[in-house]
Protein backbone atom coordinates (compact mmCIF):
# COMPACT_ATOMS: atom_id res chain seq x y z
CA UNK A 1 0.00 0.00 0.00
CA UNK A 2 1.24 3.48 -0.79
CA UNK A 3 2.51 5.45 2.23
CA UNK A 4 0.49 8.47 1.01
CA UNK A 5 -2.89 6.72 1.11
CA UNK A 6 -3.41 7.12 4.87
CA UNK A 7 -2.53 10.79 4.70
CA UNK A 8 -4.74 11.58 1.71
CA UNK A 9 -7.88 9.62 2.64
CA UNK A 10 -8.84 11.64 5.76
CA UNK A 11 -8.24 14.90 3.86
CA UNK A 12 -10.54 13.80 1.04
CA UNK A 13 -13.38 13.12 3.47
CA UNK A 14 -12.82 16.04 5.82
CA UNK A 15 -15.70 17.96 4.18
CA UNK A 16 -18.29 15.38 5.23
CA UNK A 17 -18.72 16.40 8.87
CA UNK A 18 -18.83 20.22 8.51
CA UNK A 19 -21.25 19.89 5.58
CA UNK A 20 -23.36 17.39 7.52
CA UNK A 21 -23.41 19.72 10.53
CA UNK A 22 -24.67 22.57 8.39
CA UNK A 23 -27.19 20.19 6.81
CA UNK A 24 -28.67 19.57 10.25
CA UNK A 25 -29.03 23.35 10.67
CA UNK A 26 -30.53 23.61 7.16
CA UNK A 27 -33.02 20.81 7.85
CA UNK A 28 -34.04 22.63 11.03
CA UNK A 29 -34.49 25.88 9.09
CA UNK A 30 -36.51 24.19 6.35
CA UNK A 31 -38.92 22.82 8.95
CA UNK A 32 -39.29 26.31 10.42
CA UNK A 33 -40.04 27.76 6.98
CA UNK A 34 -42.41 24.94 6.03
CA UNK A 35 -46.00 25.89 5.22
CA UNK A 36 -48.38 23.96 7.46
CA UNK A 37 -52.12 24.09 8.06
CA UNK A 38 -51.48 26.46 10.99
CA UNK A 39 -49.40 29.08 9.22
CA UNK A 40 -50.90 28.69 5.72
CA UNK A 41 -53.37 31.52 6.18
CA UNK A 42 -50.77 33.95 7.50
CA UNK A 43 -48.52 33.26 4.49
CA UNK A 44 -51.22 33.08 1.81
CA UNK A 45 -51.86 36.83 1.70
CA UNK A 46 -48.18 37.52 1.00
CA UNK A 47 -48.16 35.62 -2.29
CA UNK A 48 -48.59 37.32 -5.64
CA UNK A 49 -51.97 36.69 -7.34
CA UNK A 50 -50.65 34.04 -9.76
CA UNK A 51 -48.97 32.00 -7.06
CA UNK A 52 -51.98 32.44 -4.79
CA UNK A 53 -54.15 30.86 -7.48
CA UNK A 54 -51.77 27.89 -7.95
CA UNK A 55 -51.51 27.27 -4.21
CA UNK A 56 -55.22 27.81 -3.58
CA UNK A 57 -56.32 25.35 -6.24
CA UNK A 58 -54.51 22.57 -4.45
CA UNK A 59 -55.61 23.61 -0.97
CA UNK A 60 -58.34 21.04 -0.31
CA UNK A 61 -58.85 17.60 -1.72
CA UNK A 62 -62.65 17.27 -2.30
CA UNK A 63 -62.66 13.49 -1.59
CA UNK A 64 -60.76 13.94 1.66
CA UNK A 65 -63.16 16.75 2.58
CA UNK A 66 -66.18 14.48 1.98
CA UNK A 67 -64.69 11.76 4.20
CA UNK A 68 -63.85 14.25 6.92
CA UNK A 69 -67.32 15.82 6.74
CA UNK A 70 -68.90 12.39 7.29
CA UNK A 71 -66.63 11.81 10.29
CA UNK A 72 -67.39 15.24 11.76
CA UNK A 73 -71.12 14.67 11.30
CA UNK A 74 -70.94 11.30 13.08
CA UNK A 75 -68.91 12.79 15.95
CA UNK A 76 -71.29 15.75 16.27
CA UNK A 77 -74.24 13.37 16.41
CA UNK A 78 -72.52 11.31 19.07
CA UNK A 79 -71.69 14.47 21.00
CA UNK A 80 -75.32 15.64 20.89
CA UNK A 81 -76.56 12.22 22.06
CA UNK A 82 -74.17 12.34 25.01
CA UNK A 83 -75.25 15.88 25.87
CA UNK A 84 -78.90 14.84 25.69
CA UNK A 85 -78.23 11.81 27.90
CA UNK A 86 -76.50 14.01 30.47
CA UNK A 87 -79.34 16.53 30.31
CA UNK A 88 -81.99 13.94 31.21
CA UNK A 89 -81.00 13.97 34.88
CA UNK A 90 -81.88 17.19 36.67
CA UNK A 91 -83.91 20.19 35.58
CA UNK A 92 -80.84 22.44 35.72
CA UNK A 93 -78.86 20.18 33.37
CA UNK A 94 -81.88 20.00 31.05
CA UNK A 95 -81.96 23.79 30.82
CA UNK A 96 -78.21 23.92 30.25
CA UNK A 97 -78.46 21.29 27.52
CA UNK A 98 -81.30 23.16 25.82
CA UNK A 99 -79.20 26.32 25.77
CA UNK A 100 -76.20 24.38 24.49
CA UNK A 101 -78.19 22.91 21.59
CA UNK A 102 -79.57 26.37 20.75
CA UNK A 103 -76.04 27.84 20.75
CA UNK A 104 -74.83 25.01 18.50
CA UNK A 105 -77.68 25.63 16.07
CA UNK A 106 -76.86 29.36 16.02
CA UNK A 107 -73.18 28.60 15.38
CA UNK A 108 -74.17 26.40 12.45
CA UNK A 109 -72.61 23.19 13.74
CA UNK A 110 -75.88 21.23 13.63
CA UNK A 111 -78.16 20.23 10.78
CA UNK A 112 -81.15 22.51 10.29
CA UNK A 113 -84.52 21.78 8.67
CA UNK A 114 -87.24 24.16 7.67
CA UNK A 115 -88.86 26.16 4.87
CA UNK A 116 -86.92 28.58 2.74
CA UNK A 117 -85.70 29.42 -0.74
CA UNK A 118 -83.22 27.95 -3.18
CA UNK A 119 -81.31 30.40 -5.37
CA UNK A 120 -79.45 28.85 -8.29
CA UNK A 121 -76.77 30.87 -10.07
CA UNK A 122 -75.35 29.71 -13.40
CA UNK A 123 -72.74 31.05 -15.77
CA UNK A 124 -74.44 32.50 -18.86
CA UNK A 125 -75.08 29.52 -21.16
CA UNK A 126 -73.84 31.28 -24.32
CA UNK A 127 -70.48 32.50 -22.93
CA UNK A 128 -68.53 30.35 -25.37
CA UNK A 129 -70.56 31.74 -28.29
CA UNK A 130 -69.40 35.24 -27.32
CA UNK A 131 -65.74 34.32 -27.58
CA UNK A 132 -65.03 37.37 -29.72
CA UNK A 133 -65.97 39.68 -26.82
CA UNK A 134 -63.23 41.20 -24.64
CA UNK A 135 -62.27 39.18 -21.53
CA UNK A 136 -63.66 41.79 -19.15
CA UNK A 137 -67.14 41.52 -20.74
CA UNK A 138 -66.98 37.71 -20.91
CA UNK A 139 -66.01 37.47 -17.25
CA UNK A 140 -69.22 39.34 -16.33
CA UNK A 141 -71.16 36.39 -17.75
CA UNK A 142 -69.66 34.16 -15.06
CA UNK A 143 -70.68 33.80 -11.43
CA UNK A 144 -68.02 35.22 -9.10
CA UNK A 145 -67.29 35.01 -5.38
CA UNK A 146 -68.59 38.56 -4.98
CA UNK A 147 -72.01 37.58 -6.42
CA UNK A 148 -72.29 34.73 -3.90
CA UNK A 149 -71.09 36.94 -1.06
CA UNK A 150 -73.61 39.68 -1.86
CA UNK A 151 -76.51 37.23 -2.14
CA UNK A 152 -75.59 35.53 1.15
CA UNK A 153 -75.36 38.95 2.77
CA UNK A 154 -78.77 39.94 1.38
CA UNK A 155 -80.31 36.68 2.59
CA UNK A 156 -78.94 37.24 6.10
CA UNK A 157 -80.28 40.78 6.17
CA UNK A 158 -83.66 39.45 4.95
CA UNK A 159 -83.89 37.16 7.95
CA UNK A 160 -82.29 33.88 6.81
CA UNK A 161 -81.64 31.63 9.80
CA UNK A 162 -79.32 29.15 8.08
CA UNK A 163 -77.60 29.23 4.69
CA UNK A 164 -75.64 26.73 2.65
CA UNK A 165 -73.78 27.17 -0.63
CA UNK A 166 -73.52 23.97 -2.71
CA UNK A 167 -74.23 22.07 0.52
CA UNK A 168 -71.42 23.81 2.42
CA UNK A 169 -72.95 25.42 5.49
CA UNK A 170 -72.17 29.08 6.06
CA UNK A 171 -71.07 30.03 9.56
CA UNK A 172 -69.26 32.94 11.19
CA UNK A 173 -65.96 31.42 10.04
CA UNK A 174 -66.95 30.96 6.38
CA UNK A 175 -65.12 32.56 3.48
CA UNK A 176 -65.70 33.05 -0.25
CA UNK A 177 -62.84 33.46 -2.67
CA UNK A 178 -62.42 33.27 -6.44
CA UNK A 179 -59.64 30.94 -7.61
CA UNK A 180 -59.39 30.85 -11.39
CA UNK A 181 -62.62 29.47 -12.84
CA UNK A 182 -63.85 28.18 -9.47
CA UNK A 183 -65.03 29.63 -6.17
CA UNK A 184 -63.72 28.47 -2.81
CA UNK A 185 -66.42 28.25 -0.14
CA UNK A 186 -64.93 27.44 3.28
CA UNK A 187 -61.76 26.60 1.24
CA UNK A 188 -63.69 23.98 -0.78
CA UNK A 189 -63.75 24.35 -4.51
CA UNK A 190 -67.17 24.77 -6.16
CA UNK A 191 -68.19 25.75 -9.67
CA UNK A 192 -71.30 26.84 -11.53
CA UNK A 193 -74.15 26.10 -10.90
CA UNK A 194 -74.00 27.63 -7.43
CA UNK A 195 -76.99 26.53 -5.33
CA UNK A 196 -77.64 28.76 -2.33
CA UNK A 197 -80.19 27.37 0.13
CA UNK A 198 -81.55 29.55 2.91
CA UNK A 199 -83.96 28.63 5.68
CA UNK A 200 -86.24 31.42 6.83
CA UNK A 201 -89.29 33.36 5.68
CA UNK A 202 -89.26 32.59 1.95
CA UNK A 203 -91.40 35.57 0.93
CA UNK A 204 -89.22 38.09 2.79
CA UNK A 205 -85.98 36.63 1.46
CA UNK A 206 -87.31 36.45 -2.08
CA UNK A 207 -88.52 40.06 -1.82
CA UNK A 208 -85.09 41.18 -0.56
CA UNK A 209 -83.32 39.52 -3.45
CA UNK A 210 -85.76 40.80 -6.09
CA UNK A 211 -85.58 44.46 -5.07
CA UNK A 212 -85.14 46.94 -7.90
CA UNK A 213 -81.41 47.57 -8.30
CA UNK A 214 -80.92 44.77 -5.78
CA UNK A 215 -78.20 42.15 -5.76
CA UNK A 216 -79.77 40.02 -8.49
CA UNK A 217 -80.65 42.82 -10.91
CA UNK A 218 -77.01 43.20 -11.99
CA UNK A 219 -76.65 39.48 -12.76
CA UNK A 220 -80.03 39.39 -14.53
CA UNK A 221 -79.02 42.38 -16.66
CA UNK A 222 -76.30 40.19 -18.20
CA UNK A 223 -78.64 37.24 -18.77
CA UNK A 224 -81.92 36.52 -16.90
CA UNK A 225 -81.23 32.77 -17.21
CA UNK A 226 -78.29 33.12 -14.84
CA UNK A 227 -80.59 33.26 -11.77
CA UNK A 228 -83.50 31.06 -10.72
CA UNK A 229 -85.34 31.23 -7.39
CA UNK A 230 -87.49 28.43 -6.01
CA UNK A 231 -89.48 28.35 -2.80
CA UNK A 232 -89.12 25.19 -0.71
CA UNK A 233 -91.68 24.03 1.87
CA UNK A 234 -89.05 22.08 3.74
CA UNK A 235 -85.39 21.34 3.23
CA UNK A 236 -82.40 20.23 5.24
CA UNK A 237 -79.08 22.06 5.49
CA UNK A 238 -75.90 20.24 6.58
CA UNK A 239 -73.80 21.25 9.59
CA UNK A 240 -70.73 23.44 9.20
CA UNK A 241 -67.81 21.07 8.63
CA UNK A 242 -64.86 23.45 8.86
CA UNK A 243 -62.56 24.20 11.77
CA UNK A 244 -64.29 25.54 14.84
CA UNK A 245 -61.51 25.60 17.42
CA UNK A 246 -59.73 28.84 18.26
CA UNK A 247 -55.96 29.07 17.98
CA UNK A 248 -55.44 32.50 19.54
CA UNK A 249 -58.83 33.72 20.73
CA UNK A 250 -60.19 32.67 24.12
CA UNK A 251 -63.30 33.39 26.17
CA UNK A 252 -62.40 35.79 29.01
CA UNK A 253 -62.35 34.07 32.40
CA UNK A 254 -64.38 36.84 34.04
CA UNK A 255 -67.57 37.07 32.02
CA UNK A 256 -69.67 40.24 32.48
Amino acid at each position, binding site marked *: MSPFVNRITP*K*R*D*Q*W*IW*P*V*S*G*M*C*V*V*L*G*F*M*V*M*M*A*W*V*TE*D*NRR*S*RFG*LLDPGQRQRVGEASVDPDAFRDMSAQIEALNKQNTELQNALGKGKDSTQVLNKQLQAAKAAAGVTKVEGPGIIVTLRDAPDVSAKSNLPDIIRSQNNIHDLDVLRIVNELISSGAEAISVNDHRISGLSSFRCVGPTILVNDIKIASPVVIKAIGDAATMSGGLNLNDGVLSEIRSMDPKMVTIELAKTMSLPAFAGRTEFRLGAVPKELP
Partner: protein
Amino acid sequence: MIAVPFIALIIGALLAFGLHIQPLHGIEGQYLAVACLAGLDTVLGGIRGGLEDRFDNAIFVSGFLSNICIAFLLAYLGDKIYLPLYLVVAFVFGVRIFNNLSLIRRSIVTIAKDSLARRKRQAALAPTPTPETTP
Protein backbone atom coordinates in the same frame (compact mmCIF):
# COMPACT_ATOMS: atom_id res chain seq x y z
CA MET B 1 -20.15 8.94 2.31
CA ILE B 2 -21.99 11.40 0.08
CA ALA B 3 -25.27 10.22 1.61
CA VAL B 4 -24.22 11.50 5.07
CA PRO B 5 -25.14 15.20 4.46
CA PHE B 6 -28.56 14.18 3.12
CA ILE B 7 -29.15 11.97 6.15
CA ALA B 8 -28.05 14.92 8.31
CA LEU B 9 -30.61 17.11 6.53
CA ILE B 10 -33.37 14.64 7.45
CA ILE B 11 -32.01 14.44 11.02
CA GLY B 12 -32.22 18.25 11.26
CA ALA B 13 -35.83 18.19 10.04
CA LEU B 14 -36.71 15.39 12.46
CA LEU B 15 -35.01 17.29 15.27
CA ALA B 16 -37.21 20.33 14.62
CA PHE B 17 -40.22 18.03 14.42
CA GLY B 18 -39.27 16.23 17.64
CA LEU B 19 -38.68 19.46 19.54
CA HIS B 20 -42.13 20.70 18.38
CA ILE B 21 -40.62 23.79 16.79
CA GLN B 22 -43.49 25.82 15.34
CA PRO B 23 -43.06 26.96 11.71
CA LEU B 24 -42.82 30.73 11.45
CA HIS B 25 -45.95 32.69 10.66
CA GLY B 26 -46.27 35.59 8.26
CA ILE B 27 -43.49 37.39 6.47
CA GLU B 28 -40.66 36.02 8.65
CA GLY B 29 -41.52 32.57 7.31
CA GLN B 30 -41.09 33.89 3.77
CA TYR B 31 -37.70 35.43 4.63
CA LEU B 32 -36.56 32.18 6.22
CA ALA B 33 -37.62 30.25 3.10
CA VAL B 34 -35.39 32.55 1.02
CA ALA B 35 -32.56 32.03 3.54
CA CYS B 36 -33.04 28.25 3.20
CA LEU B 37 -32.38 28.61 -0.50
CA ALA B 38 -29.04 30.31 0.29
CA GLY B 39 -28.22 27.60 2.85
CA LEU B 40 -29.00 24.85 0.33
CA ASP B 41 -26.72 26.49 -2.21
CA THR B 42 -23.84 26.71 0.29
CA VAL B 43 -24.27 23.07 1.37
CA LEU B 44 -24.27 21.92 -2.25
CA GLY B 45 -21.20 24.11 -2.84
CA GLY B 46 -19.53 22.38 0.12
CA ILE B 47 -20.32 18.92 -1.27
CA ARG B 48 -19.01 19.99 -4.66
CA GLY B 49 -15.83 21.41 -3.09
CA GLY B 50 -15.37 18.17 -1.16
CA LEU B 51 -15.76 16.02 -4.24
CA GLU B 52 -13.33 18.25 -6.16
CA ASP B 53 -10.79 18.26 -3.27
CA ARG B 54 -11.12 22.02 -2.90
CA PHE B 55 -13.02 22.11 0.40
CA ASP B 56 -12.06 24.73 2.97
CA ASN B 57 -13.84 24.50 6.30
CA ALA B 58 -13.53 28.18 7.27
CA ILE B 59 -14.79 29.40 3.90
CA PHE B 60 -17.66 26.92 4.00
CA VAL B 61 -18.92 27.80 7.48
CA SER B 62 -18.52 31.55 7.00
CA GLY B 63 -20.19 31.28 3.56
CA PHE B 64 -23.12 29.35 5.02
CA LEU B 65 -23.79 31.88 7.76
CA SER B 66 -23.20 35.00 5.64
CA ASN B 67 -25.28 33.74 2.69
CA ILE B 68 -28.21 32.98 4.99
CA CYS B 69 -28.01 36.41 6.62
CA ILE B 70 -27.60 38.22 3.28
CA ALA B 71 -30.55 36.38 1.71
CA PHE B 72 -32.74 37.10 4.74
CA LEU B 73 -31.75 40.77 4.87
CA LEU B 74 -32.10 41.27 1.12
CA ALA B 75 -35.66 39.90 1.20
CA TYR B 76 -36.40 42.11 4.23
CA LEU B 77 -34.86 45.17 2.57
CA GLY B 78 -36.87 44.52 -0.59
CA ASP B 79 -40.09 44.77 1.39
CA LYS B 80 -38.92 47.99 3.02
CA ILE B 81 -38.14 49.72 -0.29
CA TYR B 82 -41.00 48.09 -2.24
CA LEU B 83 -38.69 46.17 -4.57
CA PRO B 84 -39.07 42.39 -4.89
CA LEU B 85 -35.41 41.74 -3.98
CA TYR B 86 -36.26 38.20 -2.83
CA LEU B 87 -36.54 37.42 -6.54
CA VAL B 88 -32.87 38.42 -6.96
CA VAL B 89 -31.91 35.98 -4.20
CA ALA B 90 -34.14 33.25 -5.67
CA PHE B 91 -32.67 33.78 -9.13
CA VAL B 92 -29.00 33.91 -8.09
CA PHE B 93 -29.17 30.97 -5.69
CA GLY B 94 -31.46 29.03 -8.02
CA VAL B 95 -28.88 29.27 -10.82
CA ARG B 96 -26.07 28.37 -8.41
CA ILE B 97 -27.99 25.36 -7.06
CA PHE B 98 -28.47 24.01 -10.59
CA ASN B 99 -24.80 24.66 -11.37
CA ASN B 100 -23.62 22.94 -8.17
CA LEU B 101 -25.93 19.99 -8.72
CA SER B 102 -24.66 19.46 -12.25
CA LEU B 103 -21.03 19.62 -11.07
CA ILE B 104 -21.78 17.19 -8.21
CA ARG B 105 -23.37 14.84 -10.72
CA ARG B 106 -20.31 15.07 -12.97
CA SER B 107 -17.96 14.42 -10.06
CA ILE B 108 -19.96 11.39 -8.95
CA VAL B 109 -20.11 10.00 -12.50
CA THR B 110 -16.35 10.55 -12.92
CA ILE B 111 -15.59 8.88 -9.58
CA ALA B 112 -17.85 5.93 -10.49
CA LYS B 113 -16.24 5.60 -13.93
CA ASP B 114 -12.73 5.73 -12.45
CA SER B 115 -13.62 3.13 -9.87
CA LEU B 116 -15.07 0.86 -12.56
CA ALA B 117 -12.02 1.29 -14.80
CA ARG B 118 -9.69 0.59 -11.86
CA ARG B 119 -11.55 -2.62 -11.06
CA LYS B 120 -11.38 -3.73 -14.67
CA ARG B 121 -7.66 -2.98 -14.78
CA GLN B 122 -7.10 -4.90 -11.53
CA ALA B 123 -9.13 -7.81 -12.88
CA ALA B 124 -7.05 -7.81 -16.08
CA LEU B 125 -3.74 -7.72 -14.14
CA ALA B 126 -4.77 -10.52 -11.75
CA PRO B 127 -3.17 -13.87 -12.67
CA THR B 128 -5.66 -16.16 -14.37
CA PRO B 129 -5.85 -19.69 -12.89
CA THR B 130 -4.31 -22.24 -15.18
CA PRO B 131 -6.63 -25.05 -16.22
CA GLU B 132 -5.76 -28.41 -14.77
CA THR B 133 -4.45 -30.81 -17.37
CA THR B 134 -5.73 -34.34 -17.39
CA PRO B 135 -3.16 -37.09 -17.74
